[in-house]
């Protein structure tokens, strides 16, 4: 059985030392992904290695890591595509590292909440009037943004977030846009107040890598540009309204 070398970044906070790369030889099997290799290391070579994973099928979004410098879901990164190796595995960029390949995600979770990812209504209509109906075209306006699995790869690919942790970031802004574009929602003004600033939509410099690395083919870069356009239109409207008074 051929093998391939994994260079895994190890960080042990109790040692107080800087992270170091540790090499592991794993079988190079055609049906193995990087996550399988990490599981092999954990089960047979070094049980102290720490990392997150769950579904192993690109749904849960928890096994994101930097593989050869690129943010990927390790459950979708086949070992053979990196042959003959070595494969360098590091924790996701731009997040504080808790241990080995495990990163701290509280900042991301807070930013998701700030996007108010729920349907906001100014007035609720009575139940007797029935449900809020939506046409397939109206659903199509935001459906792709619902595919986000919160894997945070877009944050690792975004240099703006890497340079300024205050930036709301691609997934949170795309999530806000998902609700802004929902025909049942009336919370655009609230979200615009939250995001129309330098740490929100105007912080994005359109690098575009967030959309490139997204494993679910969501286009956060596009969502942010549309959000910017809506912000600019709002600004002009407010200017005209002020002058008209």
């Amino acid at each position: 059985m051929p093998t391939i070398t994994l260079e895994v970044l190890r960080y042990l906070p109790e040692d107080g030392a800087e992270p170091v790369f540790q090499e592991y030889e794993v079988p190079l099997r055609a049906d193995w992904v990087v996550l399988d290799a990490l599981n092999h290391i954990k089960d047979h070579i070094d049980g102290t290695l720490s990392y997150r994973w769950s579904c192993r099928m690109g749904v849960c979004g928890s096994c994101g890591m930097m593989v050869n410098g690129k943010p990927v879901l390790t459950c979708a990164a086949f070992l053979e595509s990196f042959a003959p190796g070595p494969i360098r595995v590091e924790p996701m960029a731009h997040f504080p590292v808790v241990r080995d390949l495990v990163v701290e995600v509280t900042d991301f979770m807070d930013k998701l909440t700030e996007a108010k990812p729920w349907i906001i209504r100014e007035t609720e209509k009575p139940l007797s009037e029935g449900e809020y109906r939506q046409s397939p075209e109206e659903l199509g306006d935001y459906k792709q943004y619902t595919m986000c699995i919160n894997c945070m790869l877009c944050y690792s690919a975004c240099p703006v977030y890497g340079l300024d942790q205050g930036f709301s970031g691609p997934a949170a802004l795309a999530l806000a846009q998902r609700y802004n574009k929902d025909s049942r929602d009336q919370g655009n003004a609230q979200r615009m107040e939250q995001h129309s600033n330098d740490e929100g939509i105007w912080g994005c410099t359109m690098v575009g890598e967030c959309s490139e690395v997204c494993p679910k083919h969501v286009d956060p870069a596009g969502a942010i540009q549309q959000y910017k356009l809506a912000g600019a239109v709002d600004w002009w409207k407010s200017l005209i309204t002020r002058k008209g008074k």
Partner: protein
Amino acid sequence: MSYTLHHPKWHRVAKPIFWWIRRWAYIGFIFRELTSVAVAYFAVLLVLIYCAVQSGPEAYAALMGLLAHPAMVTISVFALGAVLYHSITWFNLSPKAMVVRLGRWRVPDLMIAGGNYAAWFAISGVIAWAYIIG
């Protein structure tokens, strides 16, 4: 979040100043940002030409003489290339920002980008026509 208050020391990596040389996509992005300098160059040049025209034929001739210098011609050729790259990538991105609906029909991305190009060529044509007949 209070549950993260007491935790082992996190490891944080500061972003290096040359972070953008690590991937071609980032290099492309920085290059595109730098082309804004060329856009600024032509904007300043336009203002200088306007001022020279206002000041009279001698000032205009002096400015034209300066612009005809081989060094200035070289700079202008490079700046033109950079501005064209800036404009083309800008127009190609426009469908990302604009979702146009006419009733139930969504205008295709190609038509939105094409509209920008058409406006660009039309305005350039009008300016060229005004220059030729003037």
